[in-house]
């Protein structure tokens, strides 16, 4: 929270409005020069020219989905497995396999800042909770390995969360949600400023009773601040700061290894971005950010079974932080070539006496150099070639190249083929964990002791894609066939003490597609299917993603402006993230949402009713936890 307040105080001066004396229209308006605004780096690639499959969840879709957080929203993206459990800090989302209780093989970026948590074995769960849903402009999900552009953690994909520009959120807005399962969400936002400086402050809370059977009473509290400053026509400065607190109940009743208890995760960040346009075809951007995380989780463990009438504290608490400085240069050379290149230095620090048996900080320094070129070989042929060279002070050098060719076979018809290679260096925990239990200075047990021999795991991904747009049918198809060959998969070993090792090589292969269809006016139908085959020799990993998942979503505007959403998901047998290979379940879930737009004077709003999981409860995260029907009502107003 401190970051936000300090920044606001700092910005209290606001900036001077450009005193523009209104003049009369003259030929000067027609003949005068204008600053370049949509310079090269501000123009995103078209979806049929990106080096990989991209699903975009925009603001409208986010609202219509009725989802209360990003992880739940990702159910709508082909290839994703999600959970709503807070057992491992925050709800999880993974692509092509939830291989364990954390999700560490995809990257999550919030306005360009990595929100991947380096704590434990690495996770994107808490990062997905960084900002209020109301502040999100869109979520770009880059399905497929993307390390050539986003570094090692983008091994299987990237979730790119883009928050709304402060110009678009001026005024006040508030929302209240209440319903079954103790759902109590509240959110308030204020946006202010003038032409050359606009600001936003959002405070929100998301709370519910969690999964049935869990020790659920989860509360997420957030505060986020963003400022967009235009000191002159060529420079743009953005400042962001915020904090996140997750208070969650965890554990299972009558389970001495995992008893009922409270856990806390807190994080804070500050980010400064500066972009200068060097002309129509060239600009540079610098980004500086700092993130801090704290985790608290402790419970008493009775020593009576060992014949000692006492107990010890078992703990997972600690803290992590990272600092990142990156520089990026984007330019266009003629009509055919567009290049983004740059570098990044990142320093990560993890401190946890309970996890590493030392008070010392484990520091990992990354330096990255990357270049990605979009080369228009012919009018209908685009080659995306890129690579990232990454040096880690702990695990050495890695090189992640990618080649992708997009061929516009005909108007609206694109074929895509490509290969890429990526690495994920082991996390601090996988490399150095050393969990020991002491009583009165006596070593009782060594739970985990990493040998440190683990090497980076790698993936070689090959894909074929097709994008078809049939405007006369109101239809749009996105198909991705993939073969992701993983080598040296890092897995926890069933040894005493526990260790991590490069365990096996296996392939994740399959096909996923998304069909978007507008069958009639004011409607949108989406149909997704994903076939996944994981040929791991480990039974749990082999079903880390279901063989088949299907989902169908209908958004329909009804008379009177009423918005109807119906979402149905059918997911085949899968290993639950928080369980072992014997706990495999299938699930179906149907959600309904009705939204009534409101208008009173200059104020607008919406009253929405959402019912999640209309059908029977399904098992989520653990066979002991169930997602039961949840109905809730949201009232949102803004001016």
């Amino acid at each position: 929270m401190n970051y936000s307040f300090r920044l606001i105080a700092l910005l209290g001066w606001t900036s001077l409005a450009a005193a523009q004396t209104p003049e009369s229209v003259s030929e000067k308006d027609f003949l005068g020069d204008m600053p370049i605004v949509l310079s090269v780096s501000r123009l995103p690639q078209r979806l049929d020219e990106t080096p990989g499959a991209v699903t975009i969840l925009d603001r409208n879709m986010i609202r219509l989905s009725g989802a209360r957080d990003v992880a739940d929203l990702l159910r709508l993206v082909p290839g994703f497995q999600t959970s709503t459990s807070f057992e491992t800090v925050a709800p999880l989302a993974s692509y092509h396999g939830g291989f364990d209780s954390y999700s560490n093989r995809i990257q999550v970026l919030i306005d360009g800042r990595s929100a991947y948590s380096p704590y434990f074995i690495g996770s994107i769960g808490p990062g997905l909770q960084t900002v209020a849903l109301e502040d999100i402009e869109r979520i770009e999900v880059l399905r497929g390995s993307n390390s050539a552009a986003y570094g090692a953690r983008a091994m299987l994909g990237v979730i790119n969360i883009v928050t709304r520009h402060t110009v678009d959120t001026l005024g006040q807005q508030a929302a209240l949600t209440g319903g079954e399962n103790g759902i109590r969400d509240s959110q308030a936002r204020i946006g202010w400023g003038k032409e050359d400086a606009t600001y936003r402050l959002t405070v929100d809370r998301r709370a519910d009773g969690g999964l049935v059977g869990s020790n659920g009473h989860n509360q997420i509290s957030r505060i986020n601040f963003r400022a967009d400053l235009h000191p002159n026509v060529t420079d743009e400065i953005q400042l962001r700061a915020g904090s996140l607190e997750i208070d969650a109940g965890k554990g299972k009743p009558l389970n001495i290894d995992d008893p009922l208890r409270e856990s806390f995760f807190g994080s804070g960040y500050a980010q400064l971005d500066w972009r200068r346009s060097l002309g129509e075809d060239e600009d540079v951007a610098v980004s500086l950010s700092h993130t801090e995380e704290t985790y608290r989780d402790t419970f008493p463990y009775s020593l009576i079974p060992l014949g000692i009438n006492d107990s010890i504290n078992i703990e997972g608490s600690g803290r992590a932080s990272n600092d990142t400085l990156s520089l990026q240069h984007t330019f266009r050379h003629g009509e055919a070539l567009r290049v983004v290149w740059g570098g990044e230095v990142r320093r990560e620090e993890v401190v946890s006496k309970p996890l590493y048996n030392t008070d010392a900080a484990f520091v990992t320094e990354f330096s990255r150099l990357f270049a990605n070129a979009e080369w228009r070989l012919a009018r209908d042929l685009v080659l995306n070639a890129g690579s990232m060279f990454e040096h880690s002070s702990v695990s050495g050098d890695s090189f992640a190249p990618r080649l992708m060719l997009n061929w516009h076979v005909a108007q609206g018809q694109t074929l895509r083929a490509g290969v890429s290679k990526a690495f994920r260096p082991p996390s601090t925990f996988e490399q150095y964990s050393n969990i020991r239990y002491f009583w009165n200075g006596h070593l009782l047990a060594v739970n985990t002791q990493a040998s440190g021999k683990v090497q980076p795991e790698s993936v070689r991904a090959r894909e074929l894609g097709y994008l078809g747009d049939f405007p006369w049918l109101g239809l749009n198809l996105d198909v991705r066939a993939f073969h992701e060959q993983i080598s040296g998969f890092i897995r926890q070993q069933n040894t005493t003490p526990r260790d991590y090792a490069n365990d096996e090589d296996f392939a994740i292969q399959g096909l996923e597609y998304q069909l978007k269809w507008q069958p009639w006016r004011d409607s949108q139908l989406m149909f997704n299917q994903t076939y996944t085959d994981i040929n791991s020799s480990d039974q749990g990993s082999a079903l880390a993603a279901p063989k088949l998942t299907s989902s169908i979503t209908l958004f329909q505007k009804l008379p009177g402006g009423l918005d109807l959403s119906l979402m149905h998901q059918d997911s085949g047998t899968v290993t639950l993230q928080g369980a072992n290979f014997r706990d495999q379940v299938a699930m179906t879930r149907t959600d309904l949402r009705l939204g009534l737009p409101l208008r009173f004077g200059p104020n607008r709003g919406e009253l929405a009713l959402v019912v999640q999981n209309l059908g029977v409860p399904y098992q989520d995260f653990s066979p002991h936890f169930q997602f039961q029907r949840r109905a809730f009502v949201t009232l949102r107003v803004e001016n």
Partner: protein
Amino acid sequence: MRLRFLLFSLWLAVFAGACAHAAVAVVIVSSERSPAYVEAAEALVSELERGGLSRYDMLQLTALEWAAAGPLAPKLFIALGTEAASALAKSELRAPVLSTLLPRSSFERVLRKSGRKSSSQFSALYLDQPLSRQLELIRLALPTARRVGVLWGPESQAQAPALKTLAQASGLDLIEATVGHDELLFSSLKSVLEDADLLLAVADPQLYNSSSIQNILLASFRAKVPLVAFSPAYVRAGALLALHVTPTQIGLQAATIARGVLLGKALSANPIYSLDFSVTVNEHVARSLGLTLDADALRARLRSREGLL
């Protein structure tokens, strides 16, 4: 230093010319000597030369020089720009005056301030493009767009009724918002962008200027609502396309009119819009929005719609 010498020689040449040709046929008064005015004047002069007039039959002055110049009795005065038109409007002249390289509202302001009415003695060739042509271009370039967003400011509001009528006739809906004096345009822009398929910019310096353009273009791009603008500078900045007339095109048409006057034809009492025009497209923006637009083809189709080809 070199520039000053050049300007001095130019002035000398003009001065000498003025003395030597007290009875020139055409006097061209430019508001200033910046590139656009020079380009229009050059096109005008060369086209008249091509038609048989000698350079010595033409006299070029700036509005400032005009104020200091002695009596002249040409057959036609041509004003390039608002300041020049205003200077000529204040003078008692025997010959007709054609004002050009100025938009319609500037010409109308000149008329109001000088108490004149447009007539065959004081007429204009406008720099801005007729609204009907702009709507036709929108229909050609963005055939699926139905809702045209427009922001009106104090200077542009007068055109609102005309655009409404034209839009209705073309089957287009207008999504309008008015920005009052000293009002921030954010909320109006936001409401227009929410419902419109495109934003049609109508020149108004209170709304569209070099400090506001950044927010307008970024907000419209985020909303995937392309900006259809009135000058190529906006296209370079990031507008999807613009309909405009180049100073050369204005100069050429002004020369055609001037030739008619020299041959004894009267100026059209009603001011006219340019016959020729240009279409400029920002291909990068178009590509990013998933559009394929060919500026030359659009211009050709628009011209053929108007029976110009």
